[in-house]
């Protein structure tokens, strides 16, 4: 008798499992059809690095070498010369070996002027690894193509249709929570 109840229970449990499997079809497809359908990538996501050029065409980078010092994989190489006309430096060379880069975004955090930023362009696949030894032109180009980017100092920024750089609204910013709460408090006070 015990055997029969056990067998019945086992069959019932198998049936439950089969029901779960067949019901799962209701959850729909969860696969991304990648080349035809791009995944939604959040603005803070670090998929690649880029240098930002202001709307007037000047570099944001001030060649302070902070990123070069902080990089754990030591893949950033910067060369600079003294600016003959005024203060500061002229950026001669800015290379990132994106092959060895581990996308930890330590350089982005170290940058005092938010010149080097994380972008969402994850499609760095290439036939030639040499292409990924990115020089300044490459990084500038990435920055120019990026629709939005992130740096801890200035938050999420994006380029509008006129080519001007603007900071994204609080809802998209990390840490916007506290600010939003303050605003809500003020509104409730009023």
């Amino acid at each position, binding site marked *: 008798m015990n055997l029969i109840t056990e067998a019945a229970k086992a069959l019932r449990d198998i049936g439950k499992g089969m029901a*779960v499997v067949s019901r799962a079809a209701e959850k729909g497809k969860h696969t991304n059809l990648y080349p035809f359908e791009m995944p939604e990538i959040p603005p803070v996501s670090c998929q690649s690095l880029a240098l930002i050029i202001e709307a007037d065409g000047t570099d944001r980078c001030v060649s302070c070498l902070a990123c070069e010092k*902080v990089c754990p994989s030591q893949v950033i190489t910067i060369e600079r010369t003294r600016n003959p006309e005024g203060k500061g430096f002229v950026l001669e060379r800015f290379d990132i070996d994106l092959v060895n880069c*581990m996308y930890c975004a*330590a350089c982005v955090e170290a940058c005092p002027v938010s010149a080097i930023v994380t972008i969402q362009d994850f499609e760095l696949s290439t036939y030639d690894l040499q292409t990924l030894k990115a020089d300044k032109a490459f990084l500038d180009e990435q920055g120019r193509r990026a629709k939005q980017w992130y740096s801890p100092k200035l938050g999420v920024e994006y380029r509008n249709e006129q080519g001007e750089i603007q900071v994204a609204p609080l809802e998209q*910013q990390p*840490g*916007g*929570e506290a600010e939003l*709460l303050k605003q809500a408090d003020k509104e409730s006070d009023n």
Partner: protein
Amino acid sequence: MSIPAALMTGPTVLEPVVGKTDEMIVNLGPQHPATHGVLQIVLGVDGERVTRAVPHIGFLHRNHEKIEESRSYAQVIPYLDRMDYVSGLQNELPYCLAVEDLAGLEVPERAKYIRTAMFEFNRIISHLVWVGTYMLDLGAITPFLYAFRDREMALDIIERTTGGRMLPNYFTFGGVRRDVHPKFWQDLLDFLDYFEKVVPEYETLTVDAPVFQARSVGVGLLSQELAVNHGISGPNLRASGVAHDLRKDQPYDAYPELDFSVITRDEGDVWARSKVRMDEIYQSIDLIRQCAELAPRSGPYLARGRVKIEAGEQRYRAAEISRGQLGVYIHSDGGTGPYRSKHRSPSFVNLQIIPDLFIGQKFSDVIAILGSIDIVLGEVDR
């Protein structure tokens, strides 16, 4: 096929268990679908019964410890992600705790809750990978895809906050690297609301399923004494009836404020290990809910301070990650980086037990037991 003599040395049981038949040497790995990476186990089998087992590791060795000697304290953190790449965030915590202890940094309240919630969230992610790959080991493909379906959703939440999916580089000394997204807690709660309804499905397909029970009950028995003596930790230890959980025994971050109890089972077999992990998923859901309730919504997320550690200072700190006790031993010489940092990775220690568990078992059970220990080879080889 001849096997190099060096591979066959080691303390093993040599006598065939059944009858007087020829022993066959089978190389399980390094390229084998069930070894979860590059692990080699040289098995002697007598028919289907295992007479000896010699594990070989190191195929994924990167010598992080040597690299870390030439990095500063903060530069080490991205390397830690790469140890246990299934739950990258959890690896960073013990190291941060140790450095905070040494440098006397105090973590702000809000950062503690963020770290704890993230830590538990990674436990869910890690256990999801375990469910999937373990069922794949046992021959069922479908739960694997369910697990990865839900894991992708969870990783999306991590990505929205940290910027990385598996290797986020998020925790740091004195808090977290950047503030959370405004919808962070709501994101978490929404996911948990969905996920809580899905976990019973996993249970139906795994621990409640008759075929799974047939494969797991009474298999791979690990006694309490053996487990403790071999330093086994995590769900493997708790499934053997030892209520050792560093979240309770040596609480860190926000765990002292949270209400939970250590999950144990007395059976010590593969099924108990699975059940403990399933229950831990529920526990993690509950803990994240508590964090979301208790966490302050504004305030500092990072206590900035200079990491200056005197010469001769040393510290061993451990945290209970999803696989067990991940410890970091830091020895300082007063420089900018660790003079020596040793990682006590749980998989590395848990893997030692396999000759004891394998010998005398069936070949199929070897796979079941190996999967139930839940190893990540990136962490074993470091």
